[in-house]
């Protein structure tokens, strides 16, 4: 169209598709991809890892995302080789002192570097999902310390979007579960591909701390609670006080299915993880993490047959005769019987941590030597 002998060029604003749909989408895609690419940069990860938030007071998903970011950084980091990693739930985060273990290993001339890979609420079905972090050539020994709730047949909802691997999830849990929970898994898949989405709550936490001047380096301990500062005192229950949960509670259900079923996704996950570690030539030690005797009377664990869980795990481990070792619960009964070693039904206090770290380090030496 010509007006006043000049060529009329339609303005972008006149075309609603270009102005209000195409341009915003392109701009946003550009920003989105750029932000995600940043998370593959080792130096940015190092910086974020250095300033990761402490445990309290934060929402649980910030905590879970911070742990995964830490693992991602450790995987990218190339200086620490010959790693012995300790993996398990928050019982491992709070129950393993890598400094004690390092001292004992070095005294025995073992050139191994222990690292705590504990992750809050980790279930056994998640072990294969973490293969990119835990089945690598830098890792020589994996010590998997399980809780008696670890072999649940249910998904740990709080972490499913952060600790996720599509192919391993289909292998371990099955496609049918995904089809029944499509929204959750389409989001998990997104988070697997786009780190900025995986760490969304953590990013908000960094921004918030930056603007409130609370951004400070992570303390030099790995535990959720600072050493020598006890967590809130536990409320000891008596049998008559226990409001028994019906099994609809996630944790209660996890204890029940771990002890009653033999073919839960938890046990399947353990089997698959052992196969993967074997294929990579990594030594695996499977052992129970101490749980206090008094926990037998809390509302989650009440009436659970622990021996049956240990037996299932022992059978899985013994079915494989190569590089897999099982440490019996009998060896840690002396820790489990001491209430003072524990801060609650699943977490050890610093006295328990010290005692158990010495025990596990010595057993590690026996096995490696």
């Amino acid at each position, binding site marked *: 169209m010509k007006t006043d002998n000049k060529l009329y060029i339609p303005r972008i*604003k006149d075309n*609603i*598709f270009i*102005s*209000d*749909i*195409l*341009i*915003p*989408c392109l*701009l*946003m895609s550009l*920003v*989105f991809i750029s932000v995600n690419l940043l998370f593959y940069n080792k130096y940015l990860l190092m910086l974020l890892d250095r300033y990761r938030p402490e445990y309290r007071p934060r929402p649980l*998903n910030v905590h879970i995302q911070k742990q995964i970011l830490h693992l991602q950084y450790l995987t990218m980091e190339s200086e620490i080789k010959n790693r012995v990693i300790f993996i398990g739930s928050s019982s491992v985060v709070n129950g393993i002192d890598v400094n004690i273990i390092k001292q004992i290993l070095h005294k025995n001339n073992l050139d191994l570097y222990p690292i705590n890979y504990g992750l809050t609420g980790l279930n056994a079905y998640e072990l294969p999902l973490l293969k990119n972090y835990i089945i690598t050539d830098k890792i020589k020994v994996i010590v998997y310390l399980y809780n008696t709730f670890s072999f649940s047949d249910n998904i740990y909802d709080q972490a499913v*979007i952060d600790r996720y691997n599509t192919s391993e999830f289909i292998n371990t849990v099955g496609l*049918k579960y995904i*089809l*029944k*929970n*499509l*929204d*959750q*898994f*389409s*989001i998990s*898949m*997104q*988070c697997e591909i*786009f780190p*900025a*989405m995986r760490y*969304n709550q953590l*990013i908000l936490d960094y921004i918030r701390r930056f603007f409130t001047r609370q951004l400070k380096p992570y303390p030099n301990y790995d535990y959720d609670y600072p050493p020598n500062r006890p967590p809130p005192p536990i409320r000891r229950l008596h049998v008559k006080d226990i*409001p028994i*949960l*019906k099994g*609809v*509670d996630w944790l209660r259900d996890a204890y029940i299915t771990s002890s009653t079923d033999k073919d839960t996704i938890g046990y399947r996950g353990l089997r698959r993880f052992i196969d993967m570690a074997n294929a990579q030539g990594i030594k695996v030690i499977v052992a129970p993490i101490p749980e206090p005797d008094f926990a037998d009377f809390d509302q989650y664990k009440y009436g659970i047959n622990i021996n049956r869980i240990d037996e299932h795990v022992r059978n899985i481990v013994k079915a494989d005769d190569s590089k897999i070792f099982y440490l019996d619960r009998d060896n840690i009964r002396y820790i489990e019987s001491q209430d003072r070693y524990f801060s609650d039904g699943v977490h050890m206090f610093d006295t328990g941590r010290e005692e158990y770290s010495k025990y596990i380090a010595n057993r590690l030496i026996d096995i490696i030597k």
Partner: protein
Amino acid sequence: MITFTSIYFFIFLIIVFLGAYILDKRARILFYTLMSYFFYVSFYPYYIFLLFGISILNYYLSKKLAGDGLSSEIKRFFLVLSLVINIGTLVVFKYISFIILNINKLFSFLHVNLCYQTFDILFPLGISFYIFIVMGYMIDIYRRQSMPAENLLDFCFLVSFFPHLLAGPILKAKEFLPQIKYAKSYDKTNTLKGIELIMLGYFKKVIIADNCAGHVNNIYLNPHINGGIAIWAATFLFAVQIYCDFSGYTDIARGIAKILGFKFPINFKYPYLSDSIQEFWRRWHITLSFWIRDYLYFPLGGSRVTQSRYILNMIITWFICGLWHGANYNFILWGLYNGILIVIHHYMNLYKLNRFLTKLPNLKILITFILVMFGWMIFRCNNISDIPIFIRAMFFLQPDKILSGAGLMLIVNIPKFFWVILLLSSIIHIIMYKKQYDLDNILILEKIPYYGRLLIYFCFFSMIFFNINSQTFIYFKF
């Protein structure tokens, strides 16, 4: 798995919008239909055959129904055949396990040792919605209130158009089919209105509904350890959640349709500000309410029958309405609860028993909201055996437990920011209702300069795609 809150949906939508821009009118309908099938395939591939099969079969039967030269008996036969196929499909995929389970229970009650195997059938998403669209279409043709679709493509497009496929609104063929010819995408006002609706829908879903979900789930999982206050608070949050979740979905669906040049019916009109339960059902899930009214309640005789027949009609109607929501006793009970309330309201009006409330309109709204909330408790509870526990707690029959429960702490711990957003949204909602704004005619984006709009879009995208704690839309499972 192109769910509405995923990035895949964002990519899918860009492709659809691009196709709508490039293609000509006829090719566009084919393109939308193919994309809708692709959208459905992404959930569970095999059920595409069900969707396509239902479309072809009903299209064929509708042609027969509309044809001249057939006696009314034969036409009735085709209608009945179509209804049997459609209802049968719904029964097989949605209710068969529930029916078998109840037969087994009945036999065990009669001490007869008979145990039929139940099937673990994966539920085809959106089946209740598209089957209702198809049934409405067939009945309208039989009644000669609508013409059949001109061709199979138009009919497949009506049934499968992706914005309404998973959770409605339930379209009426006679309103939608004529639009196919004249649909004009990227009309400036409609596009901006569509974007506005999409943003409003996502805001309701992601910011409000999803933030309520976790707290509601926690309390409803273990009602016996929660007291009355916690349960009332959770039920209030559920009322907010289900409204924002479902109306949010509808807004997104209507927005997408608007951009592409189609008009979907309104599904919600300020339902929580209704002053009676009858009014509530005229404003909540309007397309379902009207469907049930037109194709079930009126054919049964409606209210112009004897009193006993009227009550029976209401029971049948609300039983079906409850059952439509799912194969579970609590849905049936919820349906009957609403039916009873409407009957009571009907007789109160008839005998002028509620005269004393006429001067207190706000009290009427409050009472209606409380009654609706009580209904939501029945709807939301995980097990029908939990209902007595909820009732004891909600009527404060256990004074020692009124304040008990970790659930109460959860509610207290909801960020203040969320309460502020909820309060502000509620105030805006009430003002809009008082000023009688027509939701379809409010256009704010057009008044904002272009760069301001760009900034709004940017904030909106960030809100959706960096907020990943998204929950499944509640109505997907119906």
